């Protein structure tokens, strides 16, 4: 009885952080969709085809306003691109470099070691061009919002007609998943807007899913390596715990 009581208390104490962090998400009051994404769960990995499509969506749609300043072109090897393909992608960008020997800044072709150039020179310029709202950098967006990739998917697909009791001003849009349900970003995705070459459906849902996957990778490029190492570490620790338990039992068997 006493033992059960103690065990109950220790389980409570151990599990309390879990209970505490399970807070209601601060989104737009609508439950986030549980999107079927391949990288969820302990065994999940990124779907490379989806990552490549997501990159395409980012480059053709999101990159018009949103920077991705922590991701370098060389990192794209994780998406399954080889060196030449990465060089080809980076060379499509113009990067400001310098100063040169004459003290001048100059533009040059992007290299694999460069990071994605930002669409605006600074935050003020970005806000001026977007009606006062700052389009956030997307390098960490799935870690910086509760719900992660589900949240990104939710916002991208959450545009709807505003209910009668919500006032939407000019330049604003109603979104079921945005905090406060008001967003200044116009609906970014429309069916057929991005041309997929692999025959995947050119639907808003598919675009949102692919770009959410891509942004999850951008935020956590180490995820696959982390999970793989985690299995090795936990298998080792369990085996070692078993060994220690056996040793402990044998030593203690002589004690009365």
């Amino acid at each position: 009885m006493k033992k059960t009581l103690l065990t109950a208390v220790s389980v409570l104490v151990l599990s309390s952080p879990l209970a505490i962090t399970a807070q209601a998400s601060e989104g737009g009051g609508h439950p986030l969709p549980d999107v079927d994404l391949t990288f969820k769960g302990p065994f999940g990995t990124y779907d490379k085809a989806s990552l490549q499509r997501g990159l395409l969506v980012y480059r053709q749609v999101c990159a018009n306003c949103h920077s991705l300043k922590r991701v370098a072109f060389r990192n794209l090897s994780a998406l399954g691109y080889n060196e030449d393909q990465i060089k080809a992608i980076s060379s499509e960008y113009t990067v400001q470099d310098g100063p040169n020997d004459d003290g001048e800044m100059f533009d040059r072709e992007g290299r694999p070691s460069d990071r994605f150039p930002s669409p605006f020179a600074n935050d003020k310029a970005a806000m001026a061009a977007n009606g006062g709202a700052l389009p956030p950098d997307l390098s960490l967006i799935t870690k910086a919002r509760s719900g992660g990739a589900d949240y990104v998917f939710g916002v991208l697909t959450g545009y709807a007609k505003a209910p009668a009791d919500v006032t939407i001003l000019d330049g604003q849009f109603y979104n079921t998943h945005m905090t406060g349900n008001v967003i200044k970003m116009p609906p970014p995705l429309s069916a057929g807007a991005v041309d997929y070459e692999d025959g995947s459906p050119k639907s808003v849902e598919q675009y949102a899913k692919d770009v959410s996957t891509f942004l999850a990778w951008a935020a956590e490029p180490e995820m696959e390596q982390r999970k793989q190492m985690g299995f090795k570490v936990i298998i080792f620790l369990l085996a070692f715990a078993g060994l220690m338990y056996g040793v402990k039992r044998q030593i203690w068997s002589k004690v009365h």
Partner: protein
Amino acid sequence: MSAGPRTPFENKFVEWIDSRLPLFTMMQKEYGVFPTPKNFNYFWNFGAIAMVMLVTMLLTGIMLAMNYTANSGMAFDSVERIMRDVNYGWLLRYMHMNGASFFFIAVYIHMFRGMYYGSYKAPRELLWMFGVLIFLLMMATAFMGYVLPWGQMSYWGATVITNFFTAFPWIGEPIQQWLIGGFSVDNPTLNRFFALHYLLPFVIVAVVALHVWALHVTGSNNPAGIEPKSKDDTLPFHPYYTMKDSFGVTVFLVLYAIYVFFMPNALGHPDNYTLANPMVTPPHIVPEWYFLPFYAILRAVTIDIGIPFTEITLITAKLGGVLLMFGSIIVMFFLPWLDSHPVRSAKYRPKFRVALLLFVVAVLVLGKVGGMPADVPLFHITEDMIFTTTHVAQIGTAYYFIFFLVILPILSRTEKALPMPSSIHEAVLGKSAH
């Protein structure tokens, strides 16, 4: 550490060292043959577990510091560089981040064990007080560590916490400005917090050394709460407890690894992956989970205390909250005297046991409401009376202090203990007979 009688070692090298500095004799005495009660349960693993976590935090922390830049313009970027470009930087950082949480889990269970089995009672009062001091130092270290990534929660957490000091009349504001090095949290704050975050762990190591030293003077308490009387009651520390601790530590590390590798951000807050912005306040500022009970106590005070029938305010609600929060830790230093009941273990004190388990429930509930916004309506009592999270925090806070200041002193005088075994040996035999 005394130069007592010494048995020579056979190994010439060991003997050469030991005859000049009896390190090996000390290790043999304190960790080899050290007589340890034979009836420990698994709660006694958590001292060793806390020690392993402290070492983990030191090692990962030193390596992180090699790659971190303490500058408000560069800190966030340097952390992201650690995550993306430093070899195994993500591993170091996730181990350190989650290590803080698991260090606190270990220490909270260690403290609960000390309270349940009366480990703070004579002659172990000083041992307990060093423990509370370690806890206080850990809180300071963890708070300053959370500021270093310079995310939104880092910045606003630092702003809210240092703001406590302004609650003190006259001296409060100068103290706050002196602490943060300016009129608001900024680069000077980050620099000094980094310096202190690197310094304090070594102060913790020193106090841990005193804690362990004091432990080895009095010897360990045990689940029966009675002192060992004969050789039948104890076992040498090695191999009995070195092996039991190895098992317990490894099981704990499995739980730790699950968080580090599979849900590394579950215990953190998403807002801290957004760069600190003094112009944008997050809608809901919360500290790390291990501070939540104390945060709830801070926010529980909602009325100013003044002289009745006058307009004079003696203690503002803010100061009251700050005093209660500090008081909730200070009161732990006095625990050995607040509970002066001669019987140590809650096993033989049914009333104390219920009061203590309710205390644990109160702390967990405080933690829960500490993570929620204040004044969230929970249910209606009558038409216009609404029961809110603040009321829950007030009830929890009241029980927290009533437990220490009223229940313990009363139980010390009135509680009749259950019959106790005459020795540890008998306690162990009694259990196996059932």
